[in-house]
């Protein structure tokens, strides 16, 4: 026995102690992060669960808290996400295709584009709001504070995320697939359209959903663009005024609250609704990835 333990040796006490300390420290950090999130969610759930009813979802906002609902904001958000998706999917995918398949990275302008996209992903959202206000709502396009302007502003905001995700998905398609296709006499475009893109669709779709999940919670740019706070109708088209879930939540919290007219439970219920939508979107993204991801 003693010969055996000598042959292998044992780590010294200090080494084992250090190992233990780091493990505990990392576990505490993880616990802190998850714990804070849990406290927040539980607090919101306690405040808002009682108000999250079908009436809440199917009513418009009102001057009396017990009659107010979130319908206009929910439909506003759905419209915004629709506009955003219709904008970011073609533009984001086309940009990613250009950068991955056509751009010669030895040329300075292509490198400039690349650096810019990386940086754009880190620009504060309020800046996109100002951009939207200056160029979409007013200025050259003068769309006014409508669904189209709001959706495009959110689209600009998350476009870099989509481009980066789509590029990764396209890059994950091995070069041998492109070679195999080209060697059969397919053109570069046929190769991209019929081999590379279909193989990259799960990754691109996942990226788009995650980008929309980021856009759905954005408040600051929509405030700047001019989303309304009291809207008693559902948007019926791209040129309608709108409100959105985070705007409605913000409005309810910032109102003067009284004993008889307390909007805070409504705000909590709005947050719960937003969280439910987010979890749904992220679940779809994860499901898509696991179900359709191509293993090479």
């Amino acid at each position, binding site marked *: 026995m003693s010969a055996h333990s000598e042959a292998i040796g044992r780590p010294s006490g200090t080494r084992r102690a250090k190992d233990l300390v780091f493990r505990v420290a990392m576990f505490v950090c993880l616990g802190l992060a998850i714990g804070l999130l849990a406290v927040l969610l539980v607090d919101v759930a306690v405040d808002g669960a009682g108000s999250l009813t079908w009436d809440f979802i199917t009513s418009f906002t009102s001057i009396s808290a017990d009659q107010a609902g979130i319908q206009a904001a929910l439909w506003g958000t759905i419209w915004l996400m629709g506009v955003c998706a219709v904008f970011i999917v073609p533009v984001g995918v086309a940009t990613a295709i250009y950068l991955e398949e056509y751009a010669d990275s030895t040329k300075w302008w292509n490198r400039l584009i690349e650096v810019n996209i990386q940086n754009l992903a880190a620009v504060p959202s309020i800046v996109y709001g100002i951009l939207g206000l200056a160029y979409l709502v007013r200025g050259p396009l003068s769309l006014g504070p409508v669904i189209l302007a709001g959706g495009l502003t959110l689209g600009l905001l998350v476009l870099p995320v989509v481009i980066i995700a789509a590029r990764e998905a396209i890059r994950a398609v091995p070069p041998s697939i492109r070679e195999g296709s*080209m060697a059969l*006499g397919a053109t570069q475009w046929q190769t991209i359209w*019929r081999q590379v893109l279909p193989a990259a669709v799960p990754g691109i779709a996942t990226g788009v959903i995650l980008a929309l999940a980021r856009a759905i919670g954005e408040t600051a740019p929509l405030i700047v663009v001019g989303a309304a706070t009291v809207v008693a109708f559902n948007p019926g088209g791209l040129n309608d005024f709108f409100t959105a879930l985070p705007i409605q939540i913000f409005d309810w919290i910032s109102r003067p609250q009284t004993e008889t007219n307390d909007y805070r439970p409504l705000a909590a219920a709005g947050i719960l609704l937003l969280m439910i939508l987010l979890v749904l979107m992220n679940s779809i993204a994860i499901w898509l990835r696991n179900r359709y991801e191509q293993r*090479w």
Partner: protein
Amino acid sequence: MTEPQDRQQEDAAGLRRPLGVRSDDGAQATAVGGGPQEKRKPHEAVFELHDVQVSYGPKPAVRGVSFDIGKNEITALIGPSGCGKSTLIRCLNRMNDLIPTARVEGKVIYHGQDLYAKEVDAVEVRKRIGMVFQKPNPFPKSIYDNIAFGPRVLGMKGNMDEIVERALNHAALWDEVKDRLKTNAFGMSGGQQQRLCIARCLAVEPDVILMDEPCSALDPISTGKIEDLMMDLKREYSIVIVTHNMQQAARVSDKTAFFTVELDDEEHRSGRVVEFDDTDKIFTNPSDSRTEAYVTGKVG
């Protein structure tokens, strides 16, 4: 001119000599042999290479390549790693175009036409000159769609089911897969995948098939099947194969080009053709001592 022709007919009839058995017709060997770069006309050339040089960036990867590739023959390119065999084969269907820094100099003549002439479209070239790669690269689609992809993008007329069946039959794969045409090609064995890639290539009815180490990722049984297939295919197609397996070159090919790596004054490595000749001669009575050292396994 008549003797080499006789020889080719003999080869076509399948009268092959195993590796190491000395050819008894030494007279013929001297008639066709000679200097390492001596050019002879095969009965009909598909490719004529004149002083071809391929560079990635400023330095050539392979240079001074001149030989003819005959119709309905299997031409093997052998030599140590880094000697430019794969680089050369990839410039025969302009696959090197896909690498932005690659540059081809010299003349690659295909049926009398300069492949690198301005007016030649690389996509058209690849329609006529198919390629099979080192690692089987089926598309992530069904077996059927793998075959049908080429004919579809080329807009080929005809019944697609028939085209698919004919290609799979041609590649001796039909009986193994006819009941699962709609299943994903990734479920096939490596050898089947490689034969699928050959079938895919045949479906677009090319003139030449280039094979870049097609068996290097396969077991000996799959390799044997692909070699048998090549012997069948050469009746209708001309085949160029890069291989590291010298027994394979000896077994299947009619002509062999032996490449080597040379260092220039600045220590830059580039490939050159040492000897191009009938396979029998390369393996039994090579003219160059470097060829002999390589094929007998003394170096390599």
